[in-house]
């Protein structure tokens, strides 16, 4: 079963990090992805650029509306995602708990939905 682990944290925490701390965190994430891959649990994933790079698109009445920024201002911001292959929610939660930003942010774990077969 596939689960998406959405990584949220306050970007301000990252901004306050020293070069070294930021470097260590990235290396820890790389090692984590390697471990997940070895276990056959990692499908894909990607960290994201900070929210000031975000642009939001909506279509209303056939009109494309584009606005600067993320879709909602929240206390913690979406920072990346993992697509995991886990047996069940317990395993997915256990894998998610080892994602390094879980220590200072939040990881939302959700099962993926399969689209119905094509007509």
């Amino acid at each position, binding site marked *: *079963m596939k689960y998406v682990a959405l990584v949220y944290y306050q970007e301000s925490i990252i901004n306050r990090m020293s070069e070294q701390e930021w470097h260590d965190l990235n290396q820890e994430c790389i090692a984590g992805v390697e471990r997940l891959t070895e276990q056959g649990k990692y499908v894909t994933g990607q960290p994201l650029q900070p929210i000031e790079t975000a642009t939001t698109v909506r279509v209303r009445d056939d009109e494309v509306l584009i606005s600067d920024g993320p879709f909602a201002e929240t206390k913690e911001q979406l920072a990346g995602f993992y697509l995991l292959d886990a*047996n*069940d929610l*317990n395993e997915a939660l256990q894998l998610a708990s080892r994602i390094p930003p879980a220590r200072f942010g939040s990881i939302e774990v959700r*099962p993926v939905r399969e689209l119905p077969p094509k007509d």
Partner: protein
Amino acid sequence: MNTSRHINDIYKQHSRRVQATLIRLLGDFDLAEEATQEAFTAALKQWPDQGVPENPSAWLITAGHRRGIDLIRRRQTARQNQPLLAEDEHATPEADTDRIDDDMLRLIFTCCHPGLATEAQLALTLREVCGLTTEQVASALLQKPATTAQRIVRAKRKIKEAKIPYEVPERRELPERVQSVLKVIYLIFNEGYSSSSGDGIVNLNLAREAIRLTSLLAELLPEGEVFGLLALMLLHDSRRSARQDENGDLITLEEQNRDLWDREQIHSGLAALTQALQLTPTAPYTLQASIAAAHAQAGGTEDTDWSRIARLYEVLYQEVPSPVIALNRAVAVAMRDTPEDGLKLIDELASHKAIQNYYLFHAARADLYRRSGDLSSARAAYQRALALTQQGPEQRFLNQRLTQLDSA
């Protein structure tokens, strides 16, 4: 005894366990419920002629499993359920006791999974583990039946769609998960013990359900804190008949008629506590049970071992540093030493914002002022307490105290 009465007894005794196993075999809560009902219907038809089988739950599980598979086929949801059927169709459902016990534990852990909202955990546990109807759950939790039903449906959907596994957690996760099960049970108990509605009748059933559930859990999973919680609930519940007078007015521990305490239940509580103390002597529920036991063993407030109680609260506070526990510790110190000593400790707590809105904080202060003879401070504190509680019996109690102060 006639067969249908016998079947009725078997239903009471085994239906939860049969259903717990069928959930594992069929992989679906609702389907398992229907299959359980159909298995008992079949039993009602067949057993009066053919006699009750030697192992009724094995018979019921086999019958229920077969009915469940028929139901899946009939509904033509076979596509969706195929992997499940392929896996289990050939497996003969085992009915040995260990396996069934495991299924009961699986059911408890699944209903109390921390991935479900607390409200949903409560409703689902009462419905699936205790076997209450949705209407009974709703009235016990003071909810509208439609709200409860919706919560249960949503919880079951999450179990299915997020794939919350039907399993007893691994050793590594067990301590935390047991805690979350115990928390749900204690919430159920407290919901029954001090019903939060206006008229304040003690809801006996929920407290009894919680005790029954914990006894079962203690059999299946003999961990220290399971015994600790069991002891705590038995000891608290033993004072049930003494806590309120015939008008539903509260009677404080000090003023309770201890002859009304249920001695047999105290005895069971102390036995559970002995087990708990051997395993987890300083764990929170065990400590709280030890405190309840100190009260249960005293003939009255005067011969209560207040220094032991103060010490136990001290250890409990080290384990769980919450202001509410600090408040209880202060009261115990006041009883051991003087009201002024207790008040000094209570004043140290005043910096906690949350406790300022807790009516018992002000009620405890008021009581200590009353004991120390500072009646005007007592009156002010009782009035603050009164402003903070919505419960009828508590309000009447505080008003009564205020009247007593006026006539003093």
